[in-house]
């Protein structure tokens, strides 16, 4: 599994003319996370990478998504309380380093608050633009909103976020309660009581083909 990730990473970095050796020599940790780490990726899924490195130049390469973190931040309260840290600590595959910071990971109140704000923002944005969006984009918004609500639900229960394809599979298998997601929406500021259109969003999504994140 890890050698597969390494081969894919090498090929993508080579295509982007970026140095694999340089990346690894400078980084104290390189971790694959997301759908590829969990083995639930599609053929077009990006490879998500956490790189703990003192060099913070942002890296762009097709097929790769980098999250860069300074070594001194890796053990900090902010990182260890984040949604992403909880996900990586649970599902990450280490290509380099040992991930000692994992023992400090605990989903913080701030992570929950941020997710609530994200859901509120997505719902308000959808509401404001709804009539001007083509149905395929309405579906995309509804999928985004549903996934974010699922993530909020997990965070509130102190459960690390699962990769997106697993969220979709749970929804399609009927393992996620629509009522539960609606009750989370009802509790949010700005959009309470839940407008009828949001209930329609979740109903629509039950038949929708998953869209990309």
């Amino acid at each position: 599994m890890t050698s597969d990730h390494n081969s894919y990473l090498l090929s993508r970095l080579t295509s982007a003319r970026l140095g694999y050796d340089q990346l690894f020599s400078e980084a104290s940790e390189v971790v694959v996370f997301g759908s590829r780490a969990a083995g639930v990726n599609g053929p077009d899924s990006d490879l998500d990478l956490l790189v703990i490195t003192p060099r913070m130049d942002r890296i762009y390469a097709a097929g790769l998504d980098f999250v860069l973190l300074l070594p001194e931040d890796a053990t900090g309260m902010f990182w260890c309380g984040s949604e992403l840290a909880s996900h990586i600590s649970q599902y990450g595959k280490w290509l380099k380093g040992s991930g000692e910071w994992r023992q400090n990971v605990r989903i913080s109140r701030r992570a929950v608050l941020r997710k609530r704000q994200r859901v509120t923002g997505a719902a308000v944005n959808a509401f404001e633009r709804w009539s001007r969006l083509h149905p395929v984009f309405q579906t995309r918004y509804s999928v985004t909103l549903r996934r974010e609500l699922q993530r909020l639900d997990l965070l509130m229960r102190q459960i690390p976020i699962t990769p997106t394809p697993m969220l979709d599979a749970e929804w399609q298998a009927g393992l996620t309660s629509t009522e539960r997601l609606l009750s989370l929406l009802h509790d949010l500021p700005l959009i309470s009581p839940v407008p009828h259109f949001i209930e329609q969003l979740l109903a629509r999504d039950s038949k929708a083909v998953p869209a990309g994140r």
Partner: protein
Amino acid sequence: MKKRPRRRKNSKAISRIAELLREKVIDSFGWYGIAEPVEESSQKVVNGEQGVTDDDESGEPDEDEFDEEEYEERQYYYDPSDVQGALFEAISTAIDEELIPGYEDPKHAPSLAEVFEVLLGRDSELREKAEYFEELISGYDDRAHIDDLREAYSVLVHIVDQLAPTKK
């Protein structure tokens, strides 16, 4: 002979798409304080992430609410959903106006790069620029770095200028 009307139609479509990108998407960068006078933009940068306030609605004190790391994050990272939504709206209008051949009834939400692939071809430089633009505004973990948003703005201005140069 048959290709001429198609080319003319494409060139009208391209001009219209440039107009939509200018009106809807470039304008949306104003929210982030990009492409606005410096006095206004500096205020928005300090305010930080969309929807973020210093108040936790629960009213309970948060022991690590004002630490330095949070302050840093608020200065540099933004929720990119406004510009993403503006792009969805622009492409929706392009679909409704039937500007993109073959996309009258799309089954998935097309990206700007896909729109350019149809109109300009797979090898077009602008298709690659559009892909880069979409990467920049996609952010990560709900956030996009302000430098990425600034870069995205420049890329989009370049794209629009190439599609329909502004008359001087």
